[in-house]
């Protein structure tokens, strides 16, 4: 069954990700969602920007893919979708690409409620360029450019995109694979702007600077930190500070 997904991969390519990277897991979960939905991958367009997550679809997915300049995945996707609404457009890119340099495009596409699905692989850091802080780096976290700990608060991406008007907004970690597959399927079936924040570990750049040296430590950190909305209900604000709440934050009335 696992090898069935190879039909969606371009032949003779090797995974570009570091050992322990969560993007390979996410790649598999996206393909499982597409497979379970029975969508014809030739009717899909995969759009990605610059950075590690941009390499999830491009060139790996055996379908139409466009790899854009840094931050510009959503405008490119907008142009393609608006001209040919028959294309099922899935944007897969990283937090730095979609939210830092591309943040303005993100909120405006959400406001317009363009019929796009966005999967933001959030590893809380700029991985490809060597581990610099970004707008999703937790306050206090160590990165190449925050040697004394990140002084700034991170964005809550789901609140940001929901407030901008997206139809469907959800957050899951790659350590919650079944929920993430279900969420991707729901987003692909939902009309309007759908945004999924997929937390993905980066042991190479984030873990090693933050006492999470091994890939398993990083996965354990995400498993311990990510809680469901129900689990969050009984916690005090101080306890919640240490946690990441996962689930659907706007379900488009579904």
């Amino acid at each position, binding site marked *: 069954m696992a090898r069935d997904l190879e039909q969606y991969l*371009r032949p003779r390519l090797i995974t570009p990700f570091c050992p322990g990277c969560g993007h390979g897991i996410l790649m598999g979960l996206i393909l499982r969602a597409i497979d379970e939905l029975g969508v014809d991958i*030739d*009717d899909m*367009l995969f*759009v990605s920007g610059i950075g590690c997550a941009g390499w999830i679809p*491009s*060139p790996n997915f*055996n*379908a*139409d*893919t*466009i*790899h*854009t*300049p840094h931050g*510009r995945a*959503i*405008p*490119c*996707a*907008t*142009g*393609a*979708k*608006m*001209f*040919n609404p*028959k*294309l099922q457009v899935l944007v897969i890119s990283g937090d730095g690409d979609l939210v830092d340099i591309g943040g*303005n*495009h993100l909120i*405006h596409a959400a406001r317009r409620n363009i019929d796009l699905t966005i999967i933001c692989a959030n590893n809380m850091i700029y991985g490809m360029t060597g581990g610099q802080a970004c707008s999703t780096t937790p306050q206090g976290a160590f990165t190449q450019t925050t040697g004394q700990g990140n002084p700034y608060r991170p964005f809550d991406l789901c609140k940001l995109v929901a407030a901008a008007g997206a139809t469907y907004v959800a957050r899951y970690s790659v350590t919650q694979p079944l929920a993430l597959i279900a969420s991707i399927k729901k987003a692909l079936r939902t009309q309007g702007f759908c945004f999924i924040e997929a937390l993905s570990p980066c042991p190479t750049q984030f873990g090693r600077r933050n006492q999470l040296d091994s890939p398993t430590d990083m996965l354990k950190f995400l498993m311990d930190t990510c809680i469901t909305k129900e689990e969050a209900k009984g916690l005090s604000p101080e306890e919640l500070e240490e946690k990441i709440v996962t689930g659907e934050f706007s379900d488009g009335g579904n």
Partner: protein
Amino acid sequence: MGWKRMKSILPAGSYYFSGADAMAEGAIAARVGYFAGYPITPATEIMKRISVRFRDTGGVFMQMEDEIASVCSLVGASWAGAKAMTATSGPGFSLMQEGIGYAAMTETPIVIVDVQRAGPSTGQASRVGSGDIMQAKWGSHGDYQIIAICPWSVQEAYDQTIKAFNLAEKYRVPVLLLAEEAIGHLRERINISEDIGIFNRKKKSGAAPFGTEEEDGVPPMPAFGDGDKLLVTGSTHNDYGLRKTDDPLVQAKLVSRLDKKIMNNRERIIDYDSYYMEDADVIVIGYGFTARSSLFAIEKLRAEGKKIGMLRLKILWPFADGLIRDIGTKAKAIFVPEMNKGQVAGEVMKYASCQVISYSQTNGEVIYPGTIVEQLRRLL
């Protein structure tokens, strides 16, 4: 695919249009399917007319959050099969440079109108300039080629917009229409003919979309959804679009083809008009609005028996190097009046062996014929 004659969208006849109206109508005549833009003086009128006209013609109009988004959405729309266009002015053109390089690298046909205003920076938003000539050529990083067209009348604003789409489709390249504020806001009577020549991009399923052995160097371009499983990337890529970011041979081959597909075809692309050139000792090289003033000046001086002529460049990039070299061997002097600090004059100096005099005016006003007469009298 290729050339065909198509009916004009507007009924044939005579119209009283602004340059902006004419560029919008030229785009519609060329079957523009997607327009994205961001408001900016003095180019907004193009967007305004397109947004209204698309209700009849069925195009897709998007007002984007900035010019970066506008140009990048053009690339997405073009790969989805659209003839795509935006219109802007200097500050927006600066923001678009990233997308122009991306379109050049991905060989995406797009048309960008730059209604030039007086810069630098915000400058004089509603005043004229032509300070974006070098930016058009060199604005994005790395080595690439674009085609830049420069209209001098409202008629040409219409005709050359159609031409811009044809060149973009033929050579799979961003085509820049370097209008000036004075052309965008000029109102003149123009003629629209019954039918027009339209070039549509070549398609060939299964063929390499980024490599060709054809003489013109332009590969066929399928669209998203055609089932070609396209790989489009701004990174260095092989003939099939697969990233090859550390292969010196792939990089050299790609950059060389992007250059050659324009430069080897430049004799076909270059376009100009000659005025009183047969016996001229002094030659004015003009383009855009300044060429209009220059022609008035030349006709006045001709009436006095002065041997003076003009070469008007209708295509600025690729530059008419061979033509200038040829003229430089015959003329005593070349005079280049411009609403910038000698951007084209510098280029003329590279190729002309005779004396080249640059006249520059950057006060946000057009150069009047009287000024050019006065300057030329000093030479004659």
